[in-house]
């Protein structure tokens, strides 16, 4: 699944050429976008424009698809992304409060990423782990790390926010991924 992980040191042209060598038709648009997001953690405008030029799919149509489905991000996320489950069981057990606690702890007022760019908080759909509700998943934007936290309350959410923020800052300082 998903294809291989590209190094971000490759130029945009190389990345686009690599993806389009495998998928180039209109019907493969979803897969093209999934690979772009897999490479960058989001869909950079520049890449979408290049894809539009090469495939002759109008940019407006690409943006239409990219904004319609939840999976795609159009802005660069923080190093770690909190995915707060907004499923029924999680909602009833207080995940909306957790969501707000994460945002207020990280100082996010607008958008979904903390002002220092380290951590993002997003609402997510059900992961199917309702027995552990409320559930928060944390993923790194390169897709290599994935942690699931169950039975989270507001205190725990605050702790998680601070821990992952510190971790993200350490990782970025130690020359990790940009």
């Amino acid at each position: 699944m998903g294809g291989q992980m590209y190094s971000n040191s490759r130029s945009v042209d190389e990345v686009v050429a690599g993806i389009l060598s495998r998928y180039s038709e209109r019907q493969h648009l979803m897969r093209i976008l999934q690979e772009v997001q897999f490479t960058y953690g989001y869909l950079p405008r520049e890449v979408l424009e290049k894809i539009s030029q090469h495939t002759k799919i109008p940019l407006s149509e690409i943006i239409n698809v990219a904004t319609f489905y939840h999976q795609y991000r159009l802005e660069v996320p923080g190093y770690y992304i909190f995915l707060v489950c907004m499923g029924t069981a999680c909602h009833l057990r207080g995940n909306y409060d957790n969501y707000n606690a994460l945002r207020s702890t990280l100082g996010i007022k607008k958008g979904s990423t903390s002002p220092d760019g380290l951590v993002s908080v997003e609402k997510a759909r059900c992961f199917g782990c309702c027995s552990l509700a409320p559930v928060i998943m944390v993923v790194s934007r390169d897709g290599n790390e994935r942690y699931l936290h169950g039975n989270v309350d507001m205190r725990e959410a605050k702790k998680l926010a601070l821990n992952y923020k510190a971790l993200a800052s350490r990782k970025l300082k130690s020359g990790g991924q940009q």
Partner: protein
Amino acid sequence: MTEWTLMDRCCDKCWHTAEYPCKHFIRCKVEGPLCHDNPECRSKRRMRLDELRYGRHGFKIRVPISSCTLAAGAREVYEAVRKEVELGNIGADITISGCLGLCYLDPWIELSKRGLPSAIYVKVKAEDVSKILKEYLSGDLSNAFALRSDGSLQFKDYKVPLLNDVAPWANQVKFVSKNCGVVNPESIEDYVALGGFRGLEAVLNLHPKNVIEVIKKSGLRGRGGAGFPTWMKWEIAYSQASDVKYFIVNADEGDPGAFMNRLLAESDPYRVIEGMIIGAYAVGASKGYIFVRAEKPLMAERLSKAVEETRKYGLLGRNILGSGFNFDIEVILSAGAFVCGEETALIAAIEGRTRPRQRPPYPATRGLWDKPTVINNVETVAHVATIFQVGVGEFTKYGTEKSKGTKMFCITGSVKRTGAYEVPIGISLSKLVYDLAGGPPDDRKVKAVQIGGPSGGCIPADLLNTPVDYETLQSAGAIMGSGGVVVIDENSCMVDVAKFFTGFTLAESCGKCFTCRIGMKILYDILNDITEGRGTEEDLDLLNELSDVIMGGSLCALGGTAPNPVKSTLRYFKDEYIAHIKDRKCPAKVCPSLVEYWVDPAKCVGCGLCVKVCPTGSISGERGKPHSIDTARCVKCSQCFITCPQGAIIKR
């Protein structure tokens, strides 16, 4: 040399390959050899079947690796078991399995040693593994949760109940989920040994018309939502003259609170593949897609692996088992949109577009790339495979006149035993809530049961005797949906619940029909006003009227059902709406605007932590003495509530 498996050739006489397949390949693996008689080949099979049960050393340890058990720490348990077996020089085979559906007991392990009953240990922690293994091997099973029935051994000496007698298990009928938590989901051999692909082998000897006839006789209805008869969909697609037809399995499970499809596909993926091949054969499809939600990566991984393995042995691809039937499957990732539960929107997503379209034409006549297309959900095709494996009579034994068979329900929310349970269709809601899920914890009371996902409805506690079948639920204002059951207790506010679901479907509305796009927004705004203390009594009539407009004026089922939570809560819980509107009170103390934060002077020690975190400076008090909150300045951010080490901040 790698060990011999059932899937390998027994001797030179076996000539089955993917290119030149043998018709009897599957039956031969378990009962064979069929084409020649050789005692050695026969005993090879028997020994291997025994090995699959007890391992090469007569001791097998199962650790469940699936999304839910992993979240509960199964990976750590697996590592602990592996270490223990290696360091302690214990002769044992460790194998992974899927999920039993008893989520409240995760993670569990099952130990099976020849001569001892299989024992299941639950809520296992990595540090307990060593002790558990020692105890079990010494014959002391007293700490096991349950034993598995085997038939050959006496159990009564152990004073541990049989799994079949434990409450949530005893009330179930394991039909489609019988392999879950038993079979190794990454081994095609294990599936074949347990009767897998026998259904397919039988089907390939039938005319497609007869296959459809069997499903018609079974009365199987789609397990994904509306309960459309499966055979009817198949027959329409079958009777279309077309060079290409498609068979799609919808594994894009989007209902919050429903995870039976993830559980099935992660725990027993080959059953899904088998059912899919059978369906494709019946309708004459040559290409299949499994549409998996990207948020459920393990499910996608297991299904992809199963497709590869199935193809390797000639059960997918050209000339499947020598029948002349060609079919192949591709697993594709869904980018996530609730509206993809609508068939035409799902097709649009595969084609790289967005939004549903007008029906008819139905996908069975014009679907993917305008070709006849059948779309079934995971549980439905798993049922198909099981029906052909064990016979249609086993299926029709259960259920009601109009809805045959069993159905999986995921019960979450305020219950003691969260889990995925399989029961005959038509049992009562109260059985699901109490006998299976154990009712709410801490002596709380059930207020309502929400069934059918965001487009379902809330059924009040006094109607819990309602039998769960497609028609009865509909007349009670809910739907079966994919089978998500959320139990709501008195700590939840029904207006908030309605607002939650409305917010969900509002966000998921694709925007094509204005009734849904704008109507849901207005619906949400009215509910928001009510929860924030700005509601009027006229709002209640408006909610009802608007709901009808949205349901009547929207193209697809999303808009057609989205107001269900509002309508059903208005029908059964009008008093809660009135309390919000007239008394400006939220009886369950959920809606923030109608709740006040208050310091309990009996608990407050005056540490001053809340003063530090309050963004508006509305908390004051002398150090060491009870503090108080100025409610006029309080913005209800809840930071004091989180921070207080004494639990002295109280909502009222």
